[in-house]
């Protein structure tokens, strides 16, 4: 495995690390803007349909969303601990924390799938596939369309994040990350935190009425 190489264009490792970190922040900015369009759609439809939209939120199972919120908060904590451990040279703890985070991510997806199955049974689906009898309004239709789009995109990102965590775990297990050289680990964990942040905003708008 190729160990820490210094790129030709860099003066030293500090410059390389700083550059990679900044690059990751710029990438995260682009990810935030990816979700922006969906939040704008949500905001517009909610403004349009007011009460009907809000009624549909009440129909969402609060427990699923809230448990998932706590799951992701814990996962953010554990992945931050992974970096904390690496900075202190405690590689074993780092691996353990990465594995825990990945498992929490899987738990999130499993809970989400149960929730989707329930929505499927109720026919609370996007657009013309929506046939929920209790809420036959346009507002409810729009809510569930946005719900599927936004939580779906988020779940895809969580899945990608879990794959990323597996890769980071593999590297950490091979002692790739040291207190001096672990910028790749920090960059990967930044992605995971972004997933948490997106859910931090999705949870109140999808579940709290």
């Amino acid at each position: 495995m190729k160990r820490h190489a210094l790129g030709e264009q860099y003066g030293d490792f500090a410059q390389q690390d700083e550059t990679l970190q900044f690059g990751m922040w710029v990438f995260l900015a682009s990810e935030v803007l990816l979700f922006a369009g969906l939040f704008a759609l949500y905001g517009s439809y909610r403004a349009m349909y007011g009460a009907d939209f809000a009624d549909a939120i009440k129909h969402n199972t609060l427990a699923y969303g809230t448990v998932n919120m706590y799951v992701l908060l814990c996962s953010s904590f554990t992945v931050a601990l992974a970096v904390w451990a690496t900075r202190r040279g405690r590689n074993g703890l780092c691996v353990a924390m990465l594995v825990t985070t990945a498992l929490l991510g899987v738990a999130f997806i499993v809970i989400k799938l149960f929730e989707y199955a329930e929505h499927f049974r109720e026919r609370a689906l996007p657009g013309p596939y929506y046939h929920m009898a209790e809420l036959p309004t346009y507002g409810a239709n729009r809510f569930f369309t946005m719900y599927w789009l936004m939580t779906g995109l988020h779940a895809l990102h969580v899945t990608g994040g879990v794959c990323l965590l597996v890769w980071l775990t593999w590297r950490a297990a091979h002692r790739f990350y040291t207190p001096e050289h672990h910028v790749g680990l920090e960059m990967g964990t930044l992605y995971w935190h972004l997933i948490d942040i997106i859910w931090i905003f999705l949870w109140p708008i999808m579940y709290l009425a």
Partner: protein
Amino acid sequence: MADETAAKYHVGGVGLIATFVGLVVLATLSLLLSFLHWPVGDLVVSLLIALVKALLVVYFFMHLIEQPFSSHMAMLVSLIWVTLLIGLAAADVVTRHTFPVRPEPTEGQPFYVR
């Protein structure tokens, strides 16, 4: 150089635990407040709490507090621009005069009755 970075502010174990506790407290607060069912305020309050939670994650879990200003700018720019898109799109919808939908014209009445 690595020593230089270590000499700057570093989020320690205590900082991480405090942040986690803060996040859980805020999430629980948000949950409890939602049971009060305020008409408009609930969305504003829950989003404000969400913003605080997000900033806690950004500054302490993501170590932005250790980073130079350029990384802060990246985060700020994305936040402002998201708000811009949501704001102006929703503002259009809210300030249009097309809702509620006009009633269907009745027999004998001209089509363009207001």
